C-alpha cells in the first residue's frame, strides 16, 4: 500500500510529466500543401471560354474579367466553395488548387456539357438584356445595343418580331450571364454536364 502510493507519486512528480501537463500545446497547425485552397492563377493564358463559370456551383463565386487587354478569372471569397471544379474544367490550366491538376493528368478526367436555354414567354418582357449581356452574342455581333435587336443571324439569341428568339443554342457556353441580367428571372440555362474519365480531353 505505502509502496504503491510512493510509486504513484514518483510517477507523477517527474519534471517532464508536470511540464507536459501544464504547458501542453498541439504542434503548430500548418495547412498541408495538398489542401484544396481557393484556386490561384497559374502563368497560363486565359482564353475567356467561360468553362469555369459554367461549371461553378456557387452563385457569384467566379467571374472572368478583362483588364488591360488580358482576360483572367476572379474568385470571390465568401461565395467560392473551394470545390475545385473550375480548376478541373478549365481547358487551358489557368487555375490551380491543391493536387487537382496532378490528379486530372493521372486520371485523364474532363467534362462534356450541353446547354438548353429556356425562356418563359409569359414573364419575358422582351427587354433584350439577356441578348446584350451574352458574351458569345457580343463576339458575333458587337453592334447589338439595348433592345437586343440584331440583323445578324449568327447570334445565340435576339429579340426578333417582338419575341425572344433562340437561334443558335449550340453556341451557348453555359456561363449564365444572361440569367443574372434578366430582370424577371424569365431565362434559364440548363447545364447537362457529363464527367469523363480515361478519355483524352477534347
Amino acid at each position, binding site marked *: 500500500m505505502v509502496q504503491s502510493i510512493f510509486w504513484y507519486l514518483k510517477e507523477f512528480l517527474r519534471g517532464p510529466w508536470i511540464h507536459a501537463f501544464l504547458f501542453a500545446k*498541439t504542434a503548430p497547425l500548418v*495547412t498541408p500543401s495538398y489542401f484544396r485552397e481557393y484556386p490561384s492563377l497559374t502563368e497560363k493564358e486565359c482564353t475567356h471560354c467561360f468553362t469555369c463559370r459554367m461549371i461553378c456551383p*456557387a*452563385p457569384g463565386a467566379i467571374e472572368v474579367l478583362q483588364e488591360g487587354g488580358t482576360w483572367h478569372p476572379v474568385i470571390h471569397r*465568401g*461565395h*467560392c*466553395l473551394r470545390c475545385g471544379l473550375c480548376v478541373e474544367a478549365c481547358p487551358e490550366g489557368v487555375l490551380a488548387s491543391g493536387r487537382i491538376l496532378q490528379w486530372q493528368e493521372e486520371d485523364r478526367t474532363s467534362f462534356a456539357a450541353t446547354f438548353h436555354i429556356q425562356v418563359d414567354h409569359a414573364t419575358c418582357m422582351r427587354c433584350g438584356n439577356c441578348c446584350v449581356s451574352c458574351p458569345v452574342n457580343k463576339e458575333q455581333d458587337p453592334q447589338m445595343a439595348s433592345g437586343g435587336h440584331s440583323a445578324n443571324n449568327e447570334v445565340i439569341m435576339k429579340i426578333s418580331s417582338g419575341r425572344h428568339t433562340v437561334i443558335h443554342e449550340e453556341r451557348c457556353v453555359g456561363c449564365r450571364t444572361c440569367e443574372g441580367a434578366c430582370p424577371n428571372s424569365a431565362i434559364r440555362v440548363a447545364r447537362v454536364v457529363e464527367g469523363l474519365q480515361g478519355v483524352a480531353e477534347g
Partner: protein
Amino acid sequence: MSLLQDAKNWVRSRSIHVAYVDVGSCNGCDIEILACLAPRYDIEQYGIYVHNNPREADILLVVGAMTPPWVERLPALWAKIPAPKAAIAIGNCPVSGCVYNRRETYILGPVAKYIPIAAEVPGCPPRPTEILSAVLAVAPTVFRDYEVNRS
C-alpha cells in the same frame, strides 16, 4: 486604473467565451467548429471556451444562411450578450448565402444586415485553423483596453 486594466486585459486574453448560433446551416460549419473542440485543434489550450449561453459569451459565432425565423431572434440573442462582445460570421452562408442564395429560396442574408459582424471567415466550410485564428485575431482588438477605449 491601469493596473486593473492590465489585469482585465490579461484575464480576457486567456478567457474568451464563445457561443454559437445556427441560423440555417447545412451543419458543415458546425462540424468544423466541433473539430475545434476536439484534441487535434483543441481551442481550450488558447483559452477559448464554448458555453452556448449568450449571457456568458464574449464572442458569438454565427453559422448558416439567414432564414426567416431568425430575423427577429438573432438581434434578440445578440442583445443578451453582455459587452464587450463581437460576432464572427463562420463560412460563406452568413456572408453571401452561398449555394442556397438562389431564386425561390428563403435566404435573407447577409447576417451583417441584422447584427454587427466583426469578422468573416469565408469557406464552405472554413478549416478549423481558420476559425481559430479568426477568434484569436478578433479577441484582442475588441477586448483589450475595452474600458479605456469606451470612455
